[in-house]
Each structure stands twice: as C-alpha cells, then as structure tokens.
C-alpha cells in the first residue's frame, strides 16, 4: 500500500511537470458543422508544424460561451455575432469556411432533386400550416410529381445548433409569419415536428419516417445520399444545392471587416445562389494576443494549404478576395 502511494506521488510529479516540454497546444470549441474540416486541417497542421490544435465540436452556442468565459483559445460558431455582442464580450470574429443547409425529404417515389419548394411553402410546412403533401401549394410547385394525401412529419434538431440558426435565419428572412411566431436562433421553440440530435439524428429520422422533411448540412446530405429538394431563390431560380450554388451565394455577399464580417448569407440575391448558405465563424478573445497569434497562424496556414482538403470534405473554401480582407483584419487587430 505504502509503496503504491510512493510510486503514485512520483508519477504525479512527472505528469504535472511534463507540460513544460510538451508540444505547443491550442484549444478550440464550438460549431459541430465545420468539425470534420477543422480536425482534418489540424491533423495536417500537426504533421507540418508540430502544433496541436484540439477542436471539440460542442455546438455553436457552446463555442460562443466558452470563448466569452475564456475557457478556450478560440470559439467557433455558425451564427455570426453582431458587432455589439462582440464589443460587449471583447471578441474578434472572422469567417473560416462556407457551407449550406439543405431540406431533405422521404416520400415514396421522389428522387433527389425532384421536389421543388419555395420560401413560402418551406415556412408553412415548418410552421405546421401545410399539413399534407398534396396541399395545393406544393402541388402547384410540383405539377409533375404524384403526391398522395399523406401527413407531413417535420424533423428538426433537438440540440442547439448552428445549422438550426442558419435555417431559421432563412425562414426569418423570407417569412414575416415565421419571424413573428418563432424567430431565429441556435435553438427555437418548434411549432411542430420531432427532434433528432445532430445532423445524423435528423437524417436518421427522415430516412426512417415515411413522408417526412428535415434539414441537414449539405456535406452530410451529400455523403449519405439523402433526398434533397430544389429551392427557389431570391432571384426566382430553382437551384440545386452544389458547390457552385454556395460559391455564388458567397460571392454576392459582402463581408465587411468593419462589422467583424457580420453577415448572414441567407436568401442571397445572386441568380444561381443557394438561398440557405452560411459562413462559419471563428471567435477570438481581444486581449489574448499570444493565443490569437497562434490561432491566426493556423488559419493562415489553412487558407494557404487547406482548400483541397475542404473541397474533398464537401466544404466551400473562402474566395481569395475574402481571405485577403481577413488577413488585413488580423493585422489591424494585432493578431498577425
């Protein structure tokens, strides 16, 4: 027994002093949507530089809070913070990668890309006002589809999530009704439907439940071959969710460094823009200069070397012009 404690004491000393010579470490937490691409970048970055960047996907809400409480070196959020909120929490913010949210359905006989929806129909379905797939409104949009009189099951996220924030922001932008009744945020009080945890939970429910509709990240829909729908955008075109459509949305959006890049890419005006796109953001603590420099170094590296990897994982890299704006923003705030 006594020997055990002696050994334990020695071990304790060794472990508690070892960090001094351990590798450089960075901790980040937040949005689950960019988790695969951040962790892939971090893996390559570790190989290239020896720096460990530990990113944990706990959700955007969590990312915002952890960086506000300074429990991590950087936070990540799919929902941009307003300049006011950033000033209050003394944070910096810049976008890192772009993605999109797509509605997915499970209706017998309907293949990916066959169902067409517009803003009004989507809002009414998620409000519970359109209850059946053969509703006149949906039939008018899809004259070629044979739709039976079956009840719609709405599937949404049960956990707080940036995906929900982007999706509800879109509904907010296109439907005054939605804005008045529900609003937008990482978690909202859903009028109808069942909740699944994470993209996989929603996908799981949609696949298992006949006549259901849900929303997931594009990367997720793509990898799992889900039945996505077409959406009518602000310019009146029916768009297929694709790299090009997200890039188009990103191009038409004007990110302003003065506002810390605060911008929702939803309902973008471009002719071929996918209407539910969104950048995902990195949050830094203003006063943590040292940590910021290291985090910025990582993202600078990723902007230079990570585009191919991002595309491989079905994310849209930032356009070059935006990257330059971000680099200037870093310099201006003493992080580079």
């Amino acid at each position: 027994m006594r020997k055990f404690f002696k050994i334990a004491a020695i071990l304790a000393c060794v472990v508690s002093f070892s960090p001094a010579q351990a590798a450089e470490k960075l901790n980040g937490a937040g949005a689950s949507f960019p988790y695969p691409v951040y962790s892939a970048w971090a893996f390559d970055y570790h190989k290239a530089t020896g720096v460990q960047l530990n990113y944990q996907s706990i959700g955007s809400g969590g990312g915002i809070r952890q960086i506000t409480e300074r429990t991590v070196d950087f936070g990540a959020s799919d929902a941009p913070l307003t300049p006011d909120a950033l000033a209050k929490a003394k944070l910096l913010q810049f976008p890192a990668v772009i993605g999109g949210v797509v509605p997915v359905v499970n209706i017998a006989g309907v293949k990916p890309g066959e169902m067409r929806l517009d803003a009004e129909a989507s809002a009414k379905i998620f409000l519970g006002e359109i209850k059946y797939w053969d509703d006149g409104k949906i039939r008018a949009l899809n004259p070629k589809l044979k739709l039976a009189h079956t009840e719609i099951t709405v599937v949404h996220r049960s956990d707080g999530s940036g995906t929900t924030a982007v999706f509800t922001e879109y509904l907010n932008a296109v439907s005054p009704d939605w804005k008045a009744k529900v609003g937008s945020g990482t978690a909202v009080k859903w009028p109808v439907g069942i909740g699944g945890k994470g993209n996989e939970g929603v996908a799981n429910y949609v696949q298992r439940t006949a006549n259901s509709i849900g929303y997931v990240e594009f990367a997720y829909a793509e990898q799992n071959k889900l039945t996505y729908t077409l959406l009518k955008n602000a310019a009146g075109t029916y768009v297929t969710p694709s790299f090009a459509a997200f890039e188009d949305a990103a191009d038409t959006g004007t990110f302003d460094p003065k506002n810390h890049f605060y911008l929702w890419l939803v309902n973008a005006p471009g002719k071929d823009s996918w209407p539910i796109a969104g950048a995902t953001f990195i949050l830094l603590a203003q006063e943590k200069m040292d940590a910021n420099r290291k985090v910025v170094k990582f993202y600078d590296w990723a902007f230079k070397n990570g585009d191919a990897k991002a595309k491989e994982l079905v994310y849209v890299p930032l356009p070059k012009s935006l990257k330059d704006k971000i680099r200037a923003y870093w310099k201006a705030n003493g992080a580079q």
Partner: protein
Amino acid sequence: MTREQIRKAEGAAALTLSTLSALLGLFWLVFILGDVLVQGLQALTPTLFLNDPAPAGAEGGGLRHAFVGQLLITFFASLIGVPVGVLGGTFLAEYARGRRIARIISILSDIVVSVPSIVIGTFVYAVLVKPVGHFNGWAGAVALAIIMIPVVLRTTEDMLSLVPWELREAAFALGAPYYKVIIQVVYRGAATGILTGILLSIARVAGETAPLLFTSFNNSFFSVDMSHPIASLTATIFQYATGPYKTWHAQAWAASFVITVFILLLTILGRLIIRWRYK
C-alpha cells in the same frame, strides 16, 4: 379441482414466472454483452491501442489518446478518492464508532453514492472549470473522486467494523496508542476487504461519462497534461457513437468492449476476493 390442486397450481405458476423473470434478466445480460463482444471484437485491432485518431472519417486511426487519458483521469481520481475515502471510513468505524455523527455521515454517503453524476459534473464545472478559465483533466479527476469517496468510505467503514474488537483490546493492552492500533492491527485485518471496495469503486467510476462532459472535456490529440482538456474513453464513445462516420461507430464499439471487459473483470475480481476471504 380440489383446493389442494389449486394451491399447487398457483404455486407452480408463480414460481415459473419468477424463473422466467430471472431468465429475462440473464437474457438482457447475454444480449448486451454479446452485442458488445461481437461488434467490439470486429473493430479490435492493435492499431486501436497504438495510434492516435486520424482526421474525421478517415481510416486507420486509433484511440491511444483516449486510453491513456482515461487511465490518467481514473488514476488521479483514485489518488484523491482512495485516501480520503479510507481515512473517512476509519473515522466512522473507529474514532466516532457508535456516535451520532458517524451514523449521519454514513447515511449521507449512501445517498451521495446515488446522486445523479451529471449534477456533480455541473458542480465541478462551476468550481474548477469556470474559475480556472479552461476545461482541465484535474476537474475530471475531482468529479470522479467525488463519486468514488462515498463508495470507498462506506466499504472501509463496514470492513473495519468486521474486525473483532478483541483484537484492538489486545493491542491496547500492549500499550499501543489508538492510531498505531488502527494502522498496524485493524488495517491489516481488513486489508482485503478495503482493497475490494477500492476495486469496485474504480469499476464504478471508470465507466462514468456524464461528469466528464463538462470537466475534463475531450481532446482529439494525445496528451498527458492534466491541466488542459484530456481525452477519455467514455466521452470519446459518446462523440463517436453519435457521429456520422462508420469508422467512428466501429471504434466506439471497440472502446465499449475494452471498457466493459475492464470493468467486469474488476467487478468479478472484487467478488472473488470477498468469497475467498470471508467464507
């Protein structure tokens, strides 16, 4: 039917039902263990223990970081929990024996053992994570230690009480002070029992997940630095099982297999020691 027959039939029916329910209990055990065994063994490879994780979705990564992190957290939890538990139990069974305070603490520990572990997680988050400024392995170890202390404390108390009082009297008669009697005589007599309690308490905390979510957090890299977020098997299982990738699911099963076998072995070992010592 005669009254006699009715009574017999009723008895047979009831006893059959009770046998069936025992079989049902065994059925669940076999079902769950079998599933973990089959699915876990399929994913069990040497690289699981030797490699750190590959990037999300890619093949070939391992869980070395989580195994080491889990061992560290559990080890330090024991380092805090075992001495405090054993000393606390000593107080109840020796110095405070028969006093009201011993009884109250003993009852309270029985309750604390079953307090929801997620509440302990939120408590440690407020005390050790928020003020420090970041998630850290120590907070995880402390959260597990809090769960461990009442278990060790109660077993120690019970085991010390089983040591015959005459043994202490014999030692007193030789002029030994009480603390020497406890350390050299009583502890020796109860050593195996206390050891069993310690083993079972380790088995209890090794599978805890909820208190680690908000304390030691998780880490996708290999790290032995307890003052920062550190990986654990259980938190990794939670993340991987709810993740979208098939490779993650397979590794979650493999990790479940390892942790289940570890805990069941500890539990069986504990039971065997009790049987061997106290029969």
